[in-house]
């Protein structure tokens, strides 16, 4: 049967083509982003101390945007795949709310400064995310198994509870703390701390690699948990590994950049329409596409109303919401 080999060959060629296109788009977006913003820096202008500093800052910001956008998209792919629900997003398990509680507490308690080369706020936020993940996972467990529905419900409830804790803390905060809290919650990709950037990079890259390694398992989960077990997947172990991976990525992204919505929901969706549902292709291409999407949104946030900056979450929502509605309508028509 020549047919099947041809199909597999074609698929290989197509995924190489997709990778080339996405990497080129990413480089182009990064280049444009580097040279846009409130301060005008000409491409061929000799750099002085000032403009060099600005370019460094933008470069940090570009790298964080790509890591956070790519990471949240991969986390979205993992959660949608495991929970077999295309409406899931990285924040569904309450991880991000846990990170918010950590971040807000560190602001209110005035726990500033550095610890082990990292800013204290992101560490608090990541700790909040980690504690939330293990609490949610253990609560959802019933006699050695973690039923997906339990996990989803526990996550949603934990998220609601933790959000109300954030509101409670906010209601008792002083003026200046309030401002920091609001800015953190809005999400911001400007990063000054090289250590934090490295931390996010390690978490996101390791998590994406793990998700890629287990892409056959993720494919199997699309048939349902029992079906996955029938073809040889150790489902309980895989669920633990993959939920932990998604949470680690989400925790790191939110700790560094706050809560940026829509990326982790629509990028996996969109890429599934473009490259198909096979996770071996879906995971790397979602990482690249998520990076491009958030980078473009963040560049728009910086460049649309200079010198003011629009919160990047507003831009992702403005792009994301109509796209999502259109997709849902298209889907229900079919």
């Amino acid at each position, binding site marked *: *049967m020549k047919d099947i080999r041809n*199909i597999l060959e074609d698929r290989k060629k197509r995924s190489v083509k997709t990778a080339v296109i996405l990497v080129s788009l990413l480089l182009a977006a990064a280049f444009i982003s580097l040279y846009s913003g409130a301060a005008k820096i000409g491409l061929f202008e000799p750099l002085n101390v000032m403009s060099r500093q600005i370019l460094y800052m933008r470069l940090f910001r570009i790298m964080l945007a790509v890591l956070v956008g790519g990471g949240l998209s991969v986390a979205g792919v993992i959660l949608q795949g495991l929970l077999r629900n295309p409406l899931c997003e990285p924040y569904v398990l309450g991880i991000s709310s846990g990170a918010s509680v950590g971040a807000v507490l560190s602001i209110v308690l005035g726990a500033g400064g550095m610890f082990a080369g990292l800013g204290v706020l992101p560490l608090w936020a990541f700790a909040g995310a980690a504690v939330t993940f293990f609490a949610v996972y253990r609560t959802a467990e019933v006699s050695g198994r973690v039923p997906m529905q339990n996990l989803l419900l526990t996550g949603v409830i934990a998220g609601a509870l933790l959000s109300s804790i954030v509101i409670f803390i906010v209601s008792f905060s002083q003026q200046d703390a309030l401002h920091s809290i609001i800015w953190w919650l809005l999400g911001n990709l400007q990063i000054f701390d090289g250590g934090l950037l490295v931390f996010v990079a390690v978490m996101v890259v390791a998590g994406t690699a793990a998700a890629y390694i287990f892409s056959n398992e993720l494919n199997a989960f699309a048939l349902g948990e029992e079906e996955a077990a029938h073809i040889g997947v150790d489902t309980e172990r895989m669920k633990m590994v993959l939920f932990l991976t998604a949470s680690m990525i989400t925790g790191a992204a939110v700790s560094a950049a706050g809560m940026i919505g829509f990326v982790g929901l629509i990028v996996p969706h969109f890429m599934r329409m473009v490259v198909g*549902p096979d996770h071996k292709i879906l995971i790397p291409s979602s990482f690249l596409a998520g990076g491009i999407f958030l980078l473009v949104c963040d560049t728009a946030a910086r460049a649309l109303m200079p010198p003011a900056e629009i919160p990047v979450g507003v831009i992702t929502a403005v792009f994301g919401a109509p796209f999502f509605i259109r997709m849902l309508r298209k889907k229900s028509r079919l």
Partner: protein
Amino acid sequence: MGALYVKNVVSGYAGKAVIRDVSFTAAEGEFIGIIGPNGAGKSTLMRTISRVLRPDSGSISIGSKDIFSMPQKDFARSVAFVSSDPAVVFPFTALEVVMMGRFPYIRMFGSESREDIEAVERAVAATDCGAVVSRPIDRLSAGERQRVLIAKALAQEPGLMLLDEPTSHLDISHQVQVLDILKGLSAGKITVIAVLHDLNLAAEYCDRLVLISGGAVRSTGTPAEVLDYRIIEEVYNTVVVVRENPVSGKPYVLLAPGSKKGGDRKVSSNK
């Protein structure tokens, strides 16, 4: 390698036994039909043989190996399961679904090898789904989807294939097509055990039947032995007539409309 021994199995949910003391054996290459009324425990039995449920007592082994002591991937290489109608949520193509059957053979970092592709090609040819391989599984007809799912199970290259109601959503032509495929597999030394609702199809295709009633084996043997009208009337609580199919010589079961046995009983128990 594909011989299955089920011995004194008690199994169910949360300690509540649904099947009680079920024993039967299936020889290599045998085509066995599991029949019985709704709620008799057929699916529970299948879920126990496929390791979804752990029995409370008793043993299940393939050849000389206890299935519950086999590593998960080894088990998936010897036993494949086709469930009645799994929902595939994302639009995987039929080929991608069949390829998933190679999961227990593909190493963690590897992609599909030459053997994987050959096994998939054999599975696709045996189930005659070459024409639909590049279409999304959610766009296939019920008959096509069932054949793709059987192809996925075949790609596991199992010695034993379990099927839970493989013909339940199909019209007669597709029922015959699917059962012909299964018959072909059992001729090729794969042991096939299928839950079947249609007694006549079961009689026509299966080498042996296992009749389950109230969580226990009521009768087992050739279709002619099991489809005795007295046994069927008692188990299904329905009046039937059993005749011989003039073409195949196999028994077939006719219903007598309006003769539901429960009717009289209801009157008599009504004081």
